């Protein structure tokens, strides 16, 4: 399938946004990162907004979404619901912070609700791509992988913000490390799944589509082979292993300005690489039309 850049951006930015908001809420639940709460919130909202703008580029008639958007079995609807829920939570969170004495505290239940909403949004968003029609997409590992994106991007971004804002960096270390580890594991797991997906497409042997006389034959196995470098070097090594190493370094050195930024950059690059592979291998089960 052709690369859908608006969706590549959207899913990356939403994971980032939700990861960031979730992390700030998590730290807030422990009473940490006070100085960074507001900027993190703003950054997260901005990421979500940019993601939202990106996704509109994918829609041909966004003006119509008001005439009938809301078919509940649709992943997109579910995603929209999750976004709305998250938005409500985020606004409540902002209101609570603004109303709090230090301007950076939300009730614990709201913090945990925010973490949950973030996780739900990311999962819902990823889930809308798991389609039986596209074997390479049809796996819970993809959902975990996108959650993994959030887990690495959120804490590392939070750590960076905290470093900039001069918060105590100690509480940021563990989430970043754990998040990066989760991200690396899910990246490897999903990459392994993609690598193996070549076998799950319908095979018809030699075939010919008269309308594409100058195209080669669709061949999932060779498509997978062709994507292997991007997948393993780009998505796994750069997007999974390097951020983990950076998180380790960050935690050890405490230099989150450097290592946080490095982790984010690598994780983003990896996330985009994987999404490219995701679309390249996003062939329908019957890939011959």
């Amino acid at each position: 399938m052709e690369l859908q850049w608006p969706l590549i951006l959207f899913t990356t930015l939403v994971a980032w946004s939700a990861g960031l908001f979730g992390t700030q809420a998590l730290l807030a639940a422990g009473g940490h990162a006070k100085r960074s709460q507001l900027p993190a919130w703003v950054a997260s909202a901005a990421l979500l907004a940019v993601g939202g703008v990106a996704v509109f580029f994918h829609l041909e008639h966004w003006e119509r979404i008001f005439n009938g958007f809301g078919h509940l079995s649709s992943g997109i609807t579910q995603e929209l619901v999750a976004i709305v829920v998250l938005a409500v939570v985020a606004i409540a969170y902002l209101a609570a912070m603004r109303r709090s004495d230090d301007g950076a505290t939300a009730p614990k239940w709201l913090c945990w609700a925010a973490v949950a909403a973030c996780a739900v949004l990311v999962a819902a968003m990823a889930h809308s791509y798991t389609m039986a029609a596209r074997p390479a997409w049809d796996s819970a590992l993809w959902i975990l992988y996108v959650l993994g994106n959030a887990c690495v991007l959120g804490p590392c971004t939070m750590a960076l913000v905290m470093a900039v804002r001069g918060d105590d960096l100690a509480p940021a270390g563990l989430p970043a490390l754990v998040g990066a580890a989760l991200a690396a594991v899910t990246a490897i797991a999903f990459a392994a799944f993609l690598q193996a997906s070549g076998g799950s497409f319908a095979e018809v042997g030699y075939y010919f589509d008269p309308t594409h006389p100058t195209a080669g034959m669709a061949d999932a196995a060779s498509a997978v082979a062709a994507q292997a470098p991007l997948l393993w070097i780009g998505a796994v090594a750069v997007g999974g292993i390097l951020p983990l190493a950076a998180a380790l370094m960050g935690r050890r050195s405490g230099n989150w300005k450097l290592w946080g930024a490095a982790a984010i950059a690598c994780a983003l690059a990896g996330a985009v690489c994987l999404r490219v592979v995701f679309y390249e291998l996003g062939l329908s089960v019957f890939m011959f039309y």
Partner: protein
Amino acid sequence: MTQYAIVTDLDRCVGCLACSVACKVVNGVPTGSFWNKTLRIGPNPKEGGSGQWPDVELYFLNVGCQHCAEPECVKVCPTEASHIAADGTVQIDKSKCIGCQFCAMACPYGVRYLNEDEGVVEKCTLCEQKIAQGELPQCVSQCCGMARWFGDAEGDVREFRGPRGETAGEFLEEFSDEQVHKLPDVGNKPSFAYILRDMKWQGGE
């Protein structure tokens, strides 16, 4: 319930492409896009043969929307633009479609595409304007192999109607239920079917 569908006798399909043009003639499909395509499957080495030419077999497979009973495209559509009509066919209400193309991604056969001019997704309508009048879909009425038959998949395939008033049961050579195949089903329950008697059906069910 009704579930209108087409069954194609692959032992009669000769890959003549009359179905593809027929669709264009009545449905205003944009140049370069197709609501049905006839793929050539093979020639492939025959199972149990020498493994090479001339022990090969070949058939032609007309693929388009299969008007699934549990269509993935409908499930994922956020606007209900894609829907199941009363006659069991899967239709797109273009005025509701936002062009998100999730339906196109969710279709296991890749038969949907974005009409660039209108910004909406399209696919075979099973000639709804014709079948509503009791007529046959154009790709059925103009099929040069008399391979295509139209009817209600809830009922008996042998009752499906062909271009000259015959039924599939009267006109086609005998076939057994095992010789009736479907495109790979990932839970969407395609209602179109294909009769292939003595060759290997490629691509799984």
